[in-house]
């Protein structure tokens, strides 16, 4: 078999298998109130807390350059990244909890199709959370995230992709280290929060950390958002960096996932991961 044919087989995906997995998760959510609550609980709580902080800081508006309302905007965008990551990782954990990995990977399903399905689930979660947060921010704090304008679209797309990157990486680690590593599903993303510069500009970081932060696609998104809100400067350079870095890192983590998948098959870990 030629390399080209092997590569094609690896990356070619069947829509019906992705659809099957997405449907499997939607069935799960359809009759599980705790799962639905889990999607909205933390974002809602975050919004309430940061909303009040913003109301308080608004009293000092003149002393904080760029205004304080971007805190709420930043929070909504951060939650998009967070839910995107969770969409990928929790979908994998659901299969571990249901001990369903054997059924899935003894079928013609490919790892790439599995990942694609988790990414579709993450988009559904992001959409659900975004709608709720945007509506609540408007109702409770009269905050309109659409002041960012059309830039919001590429910002959100980049954050979703950044979430996938962290999600796929976390999934690969859980697959490798088993259920005891599942705490990573909720904690891994926070490792990236300080260098994502969600609530503060990148310049407040020490020089060496700034160098690392500039390698983080999310940091470019949040810098871009601040640029739009505070100076109305076009964030095109930040967006270009974010997109480029996202594509490179997504390629890397998908390759890592495939490598880890093969490693787990080799070690027999794939069928023992839920035990």
């Amino acid at each position, binding site marked *: 078999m030629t390399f080209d044919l092997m590569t094609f*087989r690896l990356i070619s995906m069947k829509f019906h298998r992705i659809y099957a997995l997405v449907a499997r998760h939607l069935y799960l959510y359809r009759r599980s109130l705790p799962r639905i609550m889990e999607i909205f609980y933390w974002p809602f709580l975050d919004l309430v807390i940061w909303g009040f902080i913003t109301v308080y800081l608004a009293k000092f508006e003149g002393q904080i350059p760029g205004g304080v309302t971007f805190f709420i905007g930043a929070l909504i965008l951060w939650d998009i990244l967070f839910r995107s990551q969770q969409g990928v990782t929790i979908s994998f954990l659901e299969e571990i909890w249901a001990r369903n990995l054997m059924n899935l990977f003894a079928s013609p399903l490919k790892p790439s199709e599995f990942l694609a399905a988790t990414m579709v689930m993450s988009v559904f979660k992001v959409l659900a959370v975004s709608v709720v947060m945007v509506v609540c921010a408007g109702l409770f704090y009269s905050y309109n995230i659409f002041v960012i304008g059309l830039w919001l679209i590429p910002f959100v797309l980049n954050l979703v992709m950044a979430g996938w990157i962290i999600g796929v990486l976390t999934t690969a680690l859980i697959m490798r280290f088993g259920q005891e590593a599942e705490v990573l599903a909720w904690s891994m993303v926070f490792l990236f929060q300080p260098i994502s510069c969600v609530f503060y500009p990148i310049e407040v970081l020490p020089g060496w950390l700034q160098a690392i932060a500039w390698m983080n696609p999310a940091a470019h998104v949040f810098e871009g958002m601040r640029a739009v809100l505070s100076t109305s400067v076009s964030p095109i350079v930040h967006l270009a960096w974010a997109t480029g870095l996202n594509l490179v890192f997504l390629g890397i983590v998908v390759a890592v996932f495939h490598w880890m998948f093969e490693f787990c098959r080799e070690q027999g870990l794939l069928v023992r991961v839920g035990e």
Partner: protein
Amino acid sequence: MPTPVLQVQHLVKRFGEFIAVNDISFDIGPGEILGLLGPNGAGKTTTIQMLLGVVTPTSGSIRMFDLDLATNREEILRQVNFCSTYVALPQALTVEENLWVIARLYGLSYIQEQIDDIVKRLEMEEFRYKVTRKLSSGQSTRLGLAKAFLTKPKILFLDEPTASLDPDIAQKIRSFLKEERRSSGLSVLYTSHNMHEMEEMTDRIIFLQRGKIVAEGTAQEIAARFGQVDLEEVFVKLAREK
């Protein structure tokens, strides 16, 4: 002699120093039911996991339908399925939903008709809309079989399909399997700890011990070779040699 649908050659699986499967070779012909017998830890499950592509062999080859599993995983697994007492379907989904997901996963056409058909044949009408976690063990086994037969496999791996079932349901399931084999020419790899069931269901048996094949033949041939009355006595003798 017809070409085997499954050919296993010098299959080895090591986990570090431990050798779970040690250079086994066997094949299954079209419409044949091959029994895989052995005490716990003999390597039966690891062998099945390798045949299903979820564990990679250390060495050796697995060919099905004259294709190499290592390079034709998708094509092969479309025509293969399994049912194990120890592998359940997602408990939070209904029986119907689980079957629908499986049908989509394997790319079946006329899904509803096929689900209706398998539900009818396995007498699952009364619990088809029930959540899987609420099924009895007999109903769960029938769901596992429905999942396996829904995709119309050419090779089926059955890992203790009647374990924990009452004799009446176990007998019904054995009859169903025999009928399926007769009508569709299905090839089956069958494991069970019920020796009478192995004698009843299988054409040929391979006996695994510590990862190696120590005996192969019909139940009568194996019993005769070890100087025992039946398969159960052979099993006890070999298991105690462990």
